[in-house]
């Protein structure tokens, strides 16, 4: 099930909220747990047992780890729990990739290749395994106590707002919210509703509109694409990715707020960054925090000299790239960003925000997204050469007007907070609790926007004929 589907918007969410609000406070986690299991099983009935099994196993491993008196046992159980989560991720997400590459190597050496039945990827595995790892390691480090109730732990891992696409929530960030009886507040619920609708609009009215056309453009003949079309296409994809991902995060945060949770922010106007270093403080913030806390710092961070710092940075981004997808282009994308981070460290860029560097940073990011998007490496290289060909022969605005309009609106919103009034507007829209009277127009606008989004979801799939033809 996805948030931008009719089943979720018109049935699952309202019925869940009704049940949730009617449930006594001490049983709300059970209601949330049942709904989350239904949410996951709806789209992936095959994998619900994998998800539950790994979650239950993790809970008891962490409990045993916490009870162990000797450091050696603690370390062993911690390692086992982390290995179990990572093992699950490696098997489901990377096994096909590893076998494909092994077979390519075996084939090149003239050896017999392996036969392998492709493994299907359980939805959300990249997120819930990382979330499990944060719990294991934070408990090991003594940052938090392990949870007493299994049901509370399962709720923490699989609660549906952030199960599929994050944010990656550290247990310490919401410990009190899970185990304590959450007091529901009507104004918080409304604020959550507004945030949810904003996220849905970003996805449906901007990201999906752009995506429908940019997929066609990028599936076309890249070799003969003119420079203008290439730049518009990659800018479009940049906007699509941001509005899709941040829209989803907004929906997750909004849903959490409706239930009494405060999830961490995941995006902070990343395209206004003046360096790649700053970009990664603003883009997928919770992933960046995970990589810093559980990979970069354990590798030594910046405490082992410059050379080791640069290597650590680059390694973290290489692995971060791989986390995004099981394909070489993701690894190259990660390495690409890692290189710029190292260069910025060397040149001292990124310590202060320099407005002149916003555009160059944006261009570097755009090129990076080209590597991210085009999995076929020769095609990716061809596309990048077209970007810098300065060949505008044949350039024309031939795509639907709505596509260009959506790109323009997306660009405007992406850079709005460079202006002081833009920042104020953002604060008002996202972070201000409205006075009671102010809720009325905002609520009306949100309901209309929600209805409009549902219309977009329905209309784009409705193409009747004049007559039935046989």
């Amino acid at each position, binding site marked *: 099930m996805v948030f931008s*589907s*009719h*089943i979720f918007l*018109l*049935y699952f*969410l*309202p019925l869940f*909220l*009704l049940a949730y609000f009617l449930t006594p406070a001490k049983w709300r986690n059970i209601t949330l747990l049942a709904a989350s299991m239904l949410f996951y099983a*709806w*789209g*992936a*009935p*095959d994998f619900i047992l994998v998800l539950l099994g790994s979650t239950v196993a993790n809970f008891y491993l962490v409990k045993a780890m916490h009870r162990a008196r000797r450091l050696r046992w603690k370390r062993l159980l911690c390692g086992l729990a982390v290995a179990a989560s990572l093992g699950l991720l490696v098997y489901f997400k990377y096994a096909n990739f590893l076998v494909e590459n092994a077979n390519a190597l075996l084939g090149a050496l003239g050896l017999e290749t392996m036969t392998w039945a492709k493994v299907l990827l359980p939805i959300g595995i990249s997120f819930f395994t990382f979330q499990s790892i944060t719990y294991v390691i934070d408990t090991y480090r003594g940052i938090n106590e392990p949870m007493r109730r299994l049901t509370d732990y399962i709720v923490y891992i699989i609660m549906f707002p952030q199960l599929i696409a994050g944010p990656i929530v550290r247990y310490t960030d919401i410990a009190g919210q899970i185990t304590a009886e959450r007091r529901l*507040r*009507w*104004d918080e*619920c*409304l604020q959550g*509703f507004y945030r949810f609708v904003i996220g849905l609009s970003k996805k449906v009215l901007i990201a999906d509109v752009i995506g429908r056309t940019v997929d*066609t453009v990028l*599936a*076309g*003949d890249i070799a003969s694409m003119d420079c203008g079309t290439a730049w518009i296409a990659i800018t479009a994809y940049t906007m699509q990715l941001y509005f899709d991902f941040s829209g989803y995060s907004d929906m997750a945060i909004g849903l959490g707020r409706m239930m009494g949770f405060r999830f961490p922010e995941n995006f902070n106007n990343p395209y206004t960054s003046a360096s790649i270093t700053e970009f990664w403080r603003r883009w997928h913030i919770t992933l960046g925090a995970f990589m810093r806390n559980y990979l970069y710092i354990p590798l030594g961070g910046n405490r082992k000299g410059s050379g080791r710092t640069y290597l650590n940075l680059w390694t973290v981004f290489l692995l971060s790239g791989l986390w995004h997808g099981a394909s070489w282009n993701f690894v190259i994308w990660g390495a690409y960003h890692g290189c710029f981070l190292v260069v910025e460290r060397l040149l001292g860029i990124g310590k202060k925000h320099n407005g002149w560097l916003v555009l160059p940073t944006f261009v570097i990011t755009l090129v990076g997204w080209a590597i991210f998007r085009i999995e076929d490496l020769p095609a990716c290289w061809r596309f990048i050469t077209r970007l810098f060909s300065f060949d505008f022969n044949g350039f*024309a605005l*031939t*795509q*639907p*007007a*709505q596509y260009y*309009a959506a790109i323009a609106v997306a660009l405007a919103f992406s850079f709005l907070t460079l202006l002081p009034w833009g920042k104020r507007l953002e604060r008002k829209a996202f972070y201000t609790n409205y006075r*009671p*009277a102010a*809720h*009325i127009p905002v*609520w009306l606008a949100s*309901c209309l926007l929600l*209805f*409009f989004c*549902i*219309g*977009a*979801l*329905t*209309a*784009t*799939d*409705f*193409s*009747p*004929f*004049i*007559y*039935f*033809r*046989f």
Partner: protein
Amino acid sequence: MHKVPKILCLATMALFLLVMLQERRQIISMRELKGAYTVTDLPKPAFRTLADGSWQREAEKYLRANHGFHEAAIRLYNQYAWSLFHQSTNVQVMVGGDGYLYERYFVEDFHESRMYKYTESPEELLAKFDREASRLAKLQAILAEAGTTIFVAILPGKDQIYPEYVPRPDSYFKGRTPGPRAIEAYPALFDRYGVHYTNVCQWFVNTRDAVPYPLMTKQGTHWSNIASVYAFDSVMRFMQSVGGARIPAVTVGKPYNADTREPDNDLAELLNLIRTPRGPQNQYADVALAEPAGDSASRPGIIVIGDSFFWNISYNFPLDSLFRYCYYWFYNNTAYFDPQHDNASQYDLAATLLDADYVMLSYCSGQLYDLGNEFISQALVRLCYDECDIQAVRDSLARNVDADPAWRQQIADKAADQGITFDQALRTDCDYLIFTNPESYFPELAADGIPARRCSLFLKH
């Protein structure tokens, strides 16, 4: 005031419940959406379909099409896309220059991409055209023996008449290699095989700028009402020149302007907006008999097999007075203007053809790829062979099915899906094979020249 958030939260829940109630009970009547679309039912859940996720997918499809107030939601979004961007969300309706609306298949035909609906191979498509033209020539000769005249009326396609407004290919197509076009291939084939045809499409192309009225409307997919009047008047003269059976003369009144009528704005309606855009007024002309209709027995009987362009003719001409009967077999499927039959398959095809004076295959340029919709091969088989001959072929095919477990299972699965018996599914499959490729089962039809064999009804006629 502090109760406002609580009230608004409860109001939000109430709205969601209202939407659910609307989906189940239709408590508020909504303006129906225009167009032909399949209405899906909410499937019954079963353990197997829940476990493999197929029920969930079907349930989502159902909800997408049937959720409460979906009519209003669709119209609202469509109006936004149209008003701000002049865009259609309906992939069947494409917006061209100067607000001209085109049905998708005309645009595909114009950009030489229609082939891909049928095959990836240009040679295969050209072979199909040749096969149909050759069969039609044989059918024409056989029917002529019985005094029945068959001919083709190639009707205009909007892309042919207004090519300058056709939407560009870059927006909608992946730049496929151009394929052969029926509107170019068939006239040459008809000339080669001596098939009777009238190319109304070419006539419209030649006279487009010389006439004071639009031949096709801006917001409709068909020829304009007035164009259909002048065209059919000429088609009737052509009919009589090749057939001989006399049709009462008609007079066409002076053209007059009037607000657009059905189906002159059918594409605009298909946009499903809140307010359908008003197109320019169109011209109409009234048709009347120029002479008394006389006894119906003296008038010819006509069978029309074709696409929806014939509807304009039926609205404007007094068909009951011009013909003894006029059967209209819409894509050789649904039957109109005959209270005794509602489907072409219900007719005794041989008897009906032998009784008719004219058979008109009426297809616009974009639909010509499906010329006859298998009518031609069905007619050839029925006129040359008796039911017992066809049954013998069915029996032979049934024996092949029995000997092939995979094929047998396929038919059993089809029967289960369609809720029919195995024998019914088997017969449908056999008839499909026989009538789409009759030459494989009746070698005489494959030979050059007119087949000598006739069914017993034909011999008695």
